[in-house]
């Protein structure tokens, strides 16, 4: 990697330029506006928002729900991979007839869950878990259809049971694509949980957003966005790191 192509340096330069333009534009030229808050105001808000909105508790709640749902859905898929794949073969056609559900949109399901279980952290976790399992399992089914026929022939020929073939061949062959996709599940789940909390208006960062909008706290919206994006970036980095350390093959 040459010095000129160093992506970190390149990103730093772009970021510095962005910051420079932002400070000049919104600190000195347009200090009062409703588009982007003034840098000094934003900086002050970073300190006050923790106390004003009980942010530690909100952060802990939202992050726990998201990452617990992600981890438990992965464990669930891993433990039940053979059953998932076996039963999918039986119900594949029936599932097709449920495709109309996608037109209801995720928003409807969030609203109805909030209606059924108001102010319930467990319901929020359960909803996130279901979404995560659904997305991961869907990807697993798609990937299982692309597994190299040679692997399956060999496993069958060597006398492995269908359960062993699902676990030792289908699962392993699908893992590279599945783990890559899991990063998308992570992003998606953040969006879903924030909307869930925003609608429920009781727990987590989503409800903080709602309070900030109610109080017309323009700066808080930006501070929250920056904090959440940092957390998502860190989660994404962690998932990427785990993938890199554990999945070293391409199927």
């Amino acid at each position: 990697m040459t010095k000129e192509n160093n992506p970190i340096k390149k990103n730093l330069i772009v970021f510095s330029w962005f910051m420079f333009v932002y400070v000049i534009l919104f600190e000195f030229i347009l200090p009062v506006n409703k588009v982007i808050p003034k840098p000094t105001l934003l900086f002050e808000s970073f300190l006050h928002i923790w106390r004003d909105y009980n942010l530690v508790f909100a952060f802990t709640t939202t992050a726990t729900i998201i990452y617990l749902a992600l981890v438990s859905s992965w464990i669930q898929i891993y433990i039940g991979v053979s059953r998932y794949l076996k039963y999918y073969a039986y119900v594949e056609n029936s599932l097709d007839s449920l495709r109309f559900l996608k037109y209801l949109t995720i928003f409807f399901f969030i609203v109805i869950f909030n209606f059924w279980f108001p102010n319930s952290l467990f319901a929020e976790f359960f909803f996130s878990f279901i979404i995560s399992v659904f997305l991961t399992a869907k990807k697993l089914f798609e990937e299982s259809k692309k597994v190299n026929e040679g692997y399956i022939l060999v496993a069958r020929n060597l006398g492995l049971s269908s359960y062993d073939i699902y676990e030792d061949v289908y699962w392993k062959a699908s893992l590279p694509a599945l783990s890559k996709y899991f990063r998308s599940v992570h992003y998606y789940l953040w969006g879903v949980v924030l909307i869930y909390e925003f609608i429920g208006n009781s727990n987590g960062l989503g409800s903080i957003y709602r309070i900030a909008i109610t109080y017309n706290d323009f700066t808080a919206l930006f501070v929250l966005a920056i904090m959440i994006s940092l957390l998502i970036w860190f989660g994404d980095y962690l998932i990427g790191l785990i993938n890199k350390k554990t999945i070293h093959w391409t199927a």
Partner: protein
Amino acid sequence: MIEIKNITKEYFTGAGFKISVLKDITLKVVDKKITSVIAPSGSGKSTLLKIISGLEEPTSGVVVNPSAQKIILIPTAPSSFPWLNVFDNVKFGLNKYVEKQIQLLINLVGLEGYNTFHCNNRSLGFRFRISLARSLAHNPAAILLDEPFIEMNTQTKNEMLLLIREINKTLGITFLITTSNLTEALFLSDKVYLMKKDPGEIISESDIELSTKRDESTYSSESFKQLRNKISSAFEQIESQKLVNLSI
């Protein structure tokens, strides 16, 4: 000796048309010998091997395997698992194994020192060696190779041809190979069957009367050339001959 008796394979298309893939295939896979089936692409070679290895049911006919050992198939597509290292690939599917024996097989196929290497992004030759060692680990009645060299470069292919000959001679392993390449079949085999397509049907069989010790000079020997001409002329009788590859 494994006997394939009157194997026929037919299936129906979605539109209800009957397609005959294999018709009345009868052949013998002699113990400790290398037998080849030479046939053009699309003649049902892979289907035949799947039936012999028990992975597919024939419409009619039987495969007689008098031994209790498995018939192992190595498919055309690389079949060593990229998520396992060489050692784990070789012992794949074994409930019990002796580490020393696995090591001996790894050494035999020329992968000594590569136990912990993964086959991901490695050459086809590397992956084929793993598949070969894994098949040997199951102490097979026969190893079936489905177009094994089709995507290999000439150097790798020559190495693999010699390796198969060596394993056959030293361990007495029975091989059945399907190929569309006449030259590699003649070089490897003790017996060849010629199969035509539409439907796949055996049209002749020949014993290969070449010296058992074969190396790269075999290709240029007079007896090899004569044999190749004789067998390729058999294909000239049928339309599918153009599909048989005569290159080295």
